[in-house]
């Protein structure tokens, strides 16, 4: 299945939905499923530089004791985590009641916003993270996340969250390592992270 059709003619105009990902251009790289007992973080190591973009698709839950949401904390690097003040963040969030937007600079990790569910809320958060042009050694790296958590109302007075989050890792190094954790608590069993490469 290649790009099956791109048409500027006909009654529909450009048919965006026909621009599908080619079956041979979206490949699995690795998968991590958190086992019983949980895990403080998950790591993708030795990521090949042979793709153009990376995508992480996840469902995840932490053992946070209050509220139904918790933010992620992501570090990237060449072969280990860069913990320097080299990360920025922008986010746009809706919690069912209101919307919010904010930005941060010079952070020591990419902080998400309400990305994971919790055992207190009883649900898993889900998200799709794109790391664009990750192997390019001429520019800083842009990352973005689309996702959220729904808790069927509120937990501890806090609702679920639909959010868009972006970050820049201010390094020209190719990314060969990704570490994903929760801001404070532990990732729980059945949390599932799958890494893909896009050619």
């Amino acid at each position: 299945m290649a790009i099956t059709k791109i048409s500027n003619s006909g009654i529909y105009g450009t048919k965006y939905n026909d621009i599908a990902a080619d079956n041979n251009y979206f490949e699995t790289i690795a998968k991590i499923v958190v086992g019983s007992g949980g895990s403080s973080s998950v790591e993708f190591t030795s990521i090949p530089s042979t793709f153009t973009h990376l995508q992480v698709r996840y469902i995840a839950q932490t053992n946070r004791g209050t509220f139904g949401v918790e933010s992620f904390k992501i570090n990237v690097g060449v072969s280990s985590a860069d913990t320097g003040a080299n990360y920025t963040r922008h986010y746009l969030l809706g919690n069912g009641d209101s919307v919010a937007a904010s930005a941060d600079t010079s952070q020591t990790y990419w902080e998400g916003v309400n990305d994971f569910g919790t055992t207190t809320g009883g649900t898993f958060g889900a998200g799709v993270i794109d790391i664009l042009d990750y192997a390019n050694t001429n520019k800083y790296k842009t990352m973005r996340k689309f996702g959220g958590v729904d808790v069927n109302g509120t937990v501890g007075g806090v609702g679920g969250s639909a959010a868009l989050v972006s970050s820049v890792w201010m390094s020209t190094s190719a990314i060969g390592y990704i570490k994903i954790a929760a801001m404070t608590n532990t990732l729980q069993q059945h949390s599932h992270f799958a890494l893909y490469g896009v050619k």
Partner: protein
Amino acid sequence: MAKTGTYTLIEKTTLTSTTRYITFSNIPSSYTDLVLVGFGKNTVAGDNLVYKLNGATSGYSTTRIYGSGSAASSTRWTTSVPVSLVGFVGTEWGNFITHFMNYSNTTTYKTHLTRCNYANDGVAEAVSLYQSTSAISSIEISMSDQSFASGSTFALYGIEAYS
């Protein structure tokens, strides 16, 4: 084991007449995630985009953020609704994309993520919960009150994870 053929078209349909309901059924459980790509418009006015999963008429909730071009808002629906209210369908051609994450596991409730993109009507993102541990094997797509115009298309893809 790494796989190269991991983003696969399962089924695609194009409407040849105004249609109220579109259903993908007998969805195989062999993938990790599903991605539904819709391209369509309403025949009368803007309306909610809704899903019914496995034929269930309860157990849905959603948190949504919406931008109209002049203002942003957020809305929450809880399990009082009989369908998954994931977004909206505009009056001009536009698209919506939904990711059904880990749809075939039988341990967790299912979360699906939707984006609706309509240049004339606005943009929305929604996170929706289907409170069932059953694998999702059918998806019924519709609107709250209206129908999809002829020419609307719906494509369902499966994504396999590394194994």
